[in-house]
């Protein structure tokens, strides 16, 4: 498959300046998104950031006020039919019919997708998502996890080139969440492009090759999870025996990182943010020991995506201990 090509990368989703307003609310303001074919992209952002609106725009459920996009090579506004043939959508809104059984639902959607043998396709999907036993019960009697798996199965009737998953695991128990994660992993292995939104950083960290941070209808930052983590650096903290040694420790940390240390006088601790990938914990300890700093404890903690998220979207927090508090 060849879609919109730029240099050597082929993009399954390529949007430029997508805009959507709802009255006074500017839900999406200039969304530029490039999702490489076969990639799993996690769209991360707080409630109301515009993630769902963005997905609804890209899935042809909403008409953009401005901007353009190509999905699997098809123009979003001019060829919605072709876009719909290339996508699968699962979200709290794109659901199944609770009054029909799991099997009836899948056969109906298969039929609407012009699948020839709807019975065989339904059986195959029910089996793949562990729903065979519940196949002939109304979907309204399913548990949350089963329901979400049926939603996912319904989105995969025709092997979509691009799969949109809007908060696929929100409200699910850990077992069901793992099942969905495994399913997404299997799709990724098959080369399906996946755009998923989530509020869970763990989910994005685990599934996504690329993370897009959305804040107030715009993309605040994007990159791979390690890239985003490198953006804000690691947090180094040392604890010394007595208050007098804190200044000496701060001097060493300043020399190593070039960043301004912060002090916790109660715990005799000095902390600093490091963006230097060569700064390892052994080196940190060696340098401090060589300078005669009486160390009690030392740690070098890589940032979690929580840190990245809060730092890059809020823009108000300046000091990492403050960030850590918020993240906790």
């Amino acid at each position, binding site marked *: 498959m060849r879609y919109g090509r730029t240099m050597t990368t082929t993009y399954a989703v390529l949007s430029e300046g997508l805009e959507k307003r*709802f009255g006074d609310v500017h839900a999406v303001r200039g969304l530029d998104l490039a999702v490489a074919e076969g990639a799993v992209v996690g769209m991360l952002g707080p409630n109301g950031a515009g993630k769902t609106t963005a997905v609804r725009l890209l*899935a*042809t*459920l*909403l*008409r953009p006020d401005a901007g353009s996009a190509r999905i699997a090579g098809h123009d979003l506004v001019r060829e919605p*039919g*072709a876009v*719909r*043939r290339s*996508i*699968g*959508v699962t*979200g*709290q*809104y*794109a*659901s*199944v*019919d*609770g*009054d*029909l*059984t799991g099997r*009836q639902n899948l056969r*109906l*959607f298969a*039929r*609407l*997708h012009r699948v020839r043998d709807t019975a065989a396709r339904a059986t195959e999907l029910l089996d793949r998502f562990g729903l065979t036993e519940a196949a002939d019960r*109304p979907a309204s009697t399913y548990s949350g996890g089963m329901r979400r798996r049926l939603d996912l199965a*319904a989105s995969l009737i025709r092997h979509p080139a691009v799969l949109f998953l809007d908060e696929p695991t929100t409200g699910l128990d850990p077992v069901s969440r793992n099942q969905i994660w495994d399913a997404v992993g299997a799709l990724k292995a098959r080369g399906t492009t996946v755009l998923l939104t989530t509020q869970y950083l763990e989910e994005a960290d685990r599934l996504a090759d690329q993370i897009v941070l959305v804040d107030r209808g715009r993309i605040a930052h994007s990159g791979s999870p390690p890239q985003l983590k490198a953006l804000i650096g690691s947090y180094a903290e040392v604890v010394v025996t007595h208050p007098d040694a804190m200044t000496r420790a701060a001097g060493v940390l300043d020399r190593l990182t070039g960043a301004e240390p912060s002090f916790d006088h109660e715990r005799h601790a000095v902390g600093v943010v490091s963006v230097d990938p060569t700064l390892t914990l052994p080196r940190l300890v060696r340098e401090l020991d060589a300078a005669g700093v009486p160390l009690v404890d030392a740690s070098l903690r890589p940032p979690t995506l929580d840190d990245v998220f809060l730092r890059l979207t809020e823009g108000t927090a300046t000091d990492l201990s403050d960030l850590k508090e918020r993240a906790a």
Partner: protein
Amino acid sequence: MSALAYDGTAMLGRQLRRVRNNPGLLILTQTMPISMLLFFGYVFGSALAVPGEEYRRFLVPGLLVATAAGGIMTGMFQAAQDTHRGVMDRFRTLPMSRAAVPLGQAAADVVVTAAGTVPFLLVGLAVGWRIEGGALAAAGAFGLLLLFRFACVWIGVFLGLLTRNEDAAGQLGGATFLLPLLSNAYIPTEGLPGWLRTVAEWNPISAVTTALRDLFGNAPVPDGAAWPVAHPVAGSLAWCAVLLLVFVPLAVRTYAAGPK
């Protein structure tokens, strides 16, 4: 087969399967007109100047049409429920005809209504109602009734897509019970004050009810009525055409555009 016919048939199948999965609901909706026939026919009927059996013969076509007008309520509730529960958006992400979802819903409703009318008619026969005209005229009456139902469901689908909320649709749907009260479905309009009579006779329910009474041979077309009632068959067809011409495009467009 065209995309609309193919997808529409699939949607019709979906609606009929839902009824089959949950037949209790269908039975429940049919008890309403039957109990109204018994209450109105015997309780109210005994207070009227006309003999009870004559009133019940008058009442059966009226209740058939009043029930058909209830298609506004069922259409609205169903469309609002599908939107609210997210099935509508699933359909909207599928490469299917934009008119298929409302069309399938309206068509399925007509099929279900046709089947659901049978027990009501049996009770009607038991309390003295008869087809007193020809078989052809009676068939025409049933055709007209289902056409009117079809038009009413489209009104409902449009309103349901607009409200998108089951509770609001339920509340609003209850108001459709008032529509037949201002028509000749339960009472003759000749006794109403002049202006009220005009309003009641321009109610589409009045034209269709009069047409049914005329075609079944239950009651003659009243004298001095407004045009749609004075020419009930033509008036009914005209009403259905107007309603369909207005509400089919509105419903399809609202479905295709989705929530704003």
